[in-house]
């Protein structure tokens, strides 16, 4: 059998981010496929060992570019666990707002990314302009569009600005009213459905074999496996939300879950705004101490539910001014590397981009 080799990425329109999928193809069926990561490698784990605990706050958002806040959260959670630090109540709620907005923004980007493989660019344009409005809100809250460096050790960097509540509420109402439009353009659009239904399947057994988490897992296992529910951090145990699930994991049902999660995130943010307590937002180290801040010895793993699944920091401290070892568990690591190697073969080259898109493969967090 003669094979042909095709490359999906790094500079291929079907590939988001700088990674390369090597496809060995017969006709149009993929026979073997591998992900070639590493194009975005920056030696993060080494860099973080060489920077102070506080300095690291500026570095970590860059681990996962589409959704940087989860990095800040995981880092803050891990460090606070090592420090045994209690965060002010208000900070928890603000953090949740940021995280949920980040989730919406990542989902909108991924959902708009459906425009690439299926060719429905109108969907992409619509999704991106809504995402851009979220970035504007981020800018108002934290001062930056992408890398906020807002969730810091001991709380959040500063309080919410005046009048942001109304703005957030207005935006949420606007987005909520348009969710049906997104469904009509995307996953309920007959021509798109014809293409994405029953493609890029993820059977339940595979989930455990790969260690896939997040939407992939929830859509295949039909169980609400979400860290926010199972092991709540921040104040997720005090808000009401559902974890959308499904018993059939094809490209369409995963996208369906994404849209449903956007709805849930909207609900969470509304509850946060309602229940927001007053008070301090940050435990500040005493003046002049931040550079000499030491953290007690210990090992800790801090998971956060990202838009793609379980995202965690494994941190080891030996009591010094810098972390001794930081390991980053990228949420898309299993489906990106082993998933592409084992479960892409047998599908068609048309669908390869859909796997990258709907499983949420984020190359910077694989490479780090």
């Amino acid at each position, binding site marked *: 059998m003669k094979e042909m080799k095709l490359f999906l990425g790094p500079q291929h329109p079907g590939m988001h981010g700088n990674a390369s999928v090597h496809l060995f193809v017969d006709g149009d069926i993929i026979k073997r496929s591998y992900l070639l990561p590493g194009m975005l490698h920056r030696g993060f784990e080494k860099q973080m060992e060489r920077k102070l605990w506080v300095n690291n706050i500026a570095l970590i958002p860059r681990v996962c570019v589409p959704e940087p806040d989860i990095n800040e959260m995981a880092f803050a959670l891990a460090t606070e666990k090592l420090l045994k630090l209690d965060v002010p109540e208000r900070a928890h709620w603000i953090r949740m707002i940021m995280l949920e907005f980040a989730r919406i923004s990542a989902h909108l980007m991924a959902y708009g990314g459906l425009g690439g493989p299926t*060719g429905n660019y109108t969907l992409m344009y619509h999704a991106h302009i809504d995402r851009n409005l979220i970035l504007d809100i981020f800018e108002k809250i934290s001062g930056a569009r992408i890398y906020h460096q807002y969730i810091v050790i001991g709380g959040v960097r500063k309080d919410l600005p005046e009048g942001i509540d109304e703005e957030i509420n207005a935006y949420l109402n606007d987005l909520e009213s348009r969710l049906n439009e997104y469904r009509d353009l995307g996953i309920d659009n007959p*021509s798109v459905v014809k293409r994405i239904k029953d493609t890029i399947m993820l059977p339940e057994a595979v989930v455990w074999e790969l260690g896939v988490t997040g939407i992939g897992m929830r859509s295949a296992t039909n169980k609400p496996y979400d860290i926010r529910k199972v092991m709540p951090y921040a104040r997720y145990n005090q808000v009401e939300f559902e974890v959308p699930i499904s018993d059939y994991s094809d490209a369409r049902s995963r996208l369906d879950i994404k849209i449903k999660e956007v709805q849930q995130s909207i609900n969470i943010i509304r509850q946060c705004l309602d229940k927001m307590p007053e008070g301090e937002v940050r435990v500040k180290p005493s003046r002049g101490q931040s550079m000499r801040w030491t953290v007690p010895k210990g090992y800790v793993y801090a998971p956060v539910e990202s838009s793609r699944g379980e995202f965690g920091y494994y941190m080891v401290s030996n009591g010094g001014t810098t972390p001794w070892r930081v390991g980053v568990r990228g949420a898309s690591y299993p489906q990106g590397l082993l998933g592409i190697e084992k479960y892409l073969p047998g599908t068609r080259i048309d669908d390869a981009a859909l796997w990258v898109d709907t499983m949420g493969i984020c190359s910077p967090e694989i490479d780090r």
Partner: protein
Amino acid sequence: MILSIFIGISIALFGFVLQTSIGGINRKIIGRLQKRHGPRWYQEFIDIFKLLSKRSVSHGWIFDFGVIMALGGIIATAMFMPLTSTFLAFENYDNFFIFVYLLAVGMLGMAMSASGSGNPWASIGVMRALTTMLAYEVPFLIVVLTIVNLSGNSSLTEIMLYQQAAGNNIFLIALPLGGIVGFIALMGMLGKKPFETYIAPAEIASGPMVEYGGKQLGMLFILHEITIFIEVSLFVHLFLGGATNIFEFLFKYFIVYTVANLISNVNGRFKIDQVVKFFYKWPLLMAVTQAIIAIYFGWVI
């Protein structure tokens, strides 16, 4: 004869300018659909002239020759195209089959050149383009068979005159099923979504165009514009009764192209075998039904 050829060349040139402008305007319309401002209406001209001014790469003589052959074939096709029922370069010789087969020259030239680049993406794109052609052409030709059989002439101007004559309605209404098939096939011909499988940037990196840059790509853009001009004009002449004056033609042309474009932009694209299946299911059935009831039973609205 010389005069006719010059008229033909000017028709081809007119078609290029027309389609490029309308394409630009359409980009603006689509921009509005996508909540943005859209480019300048003459952006397509700038793009083409920019490409022509660049220094490209070449993969050997067949890479260049294919492009020349494709563009030449398409220009030749456009030279036969009547604009109105009286304005055409070669009277009586605007036979429908000339368009179908000379268009194929363009397709073949482009396919040859793309394969000559030695890039598998290009070959896949060519494969998809040819397969799509197999899909839309048969239903379309059956509808045209009906039209030619009814009007008794395969010359485009004669078909136009037949539709314009008193008592005969335009074929889009007279043959409702056939009209629908014709429009769907037009979408396929124009490479609009959901039948845009052979460009598909996210799957096969723009398919046949993958290796082109500079003047070859510029020539292919010209080719593309003239091809669209031919295909849309064919639809206007065959199904919309052609035009008696140039403004009517422009109006119908604009409407047809814009509607196709708008439909295209809220759809995703099919996979290639879905395209084939789609065309051989409903459109072919409708075309055959239409042909039988129109030819054997004589039921024409």
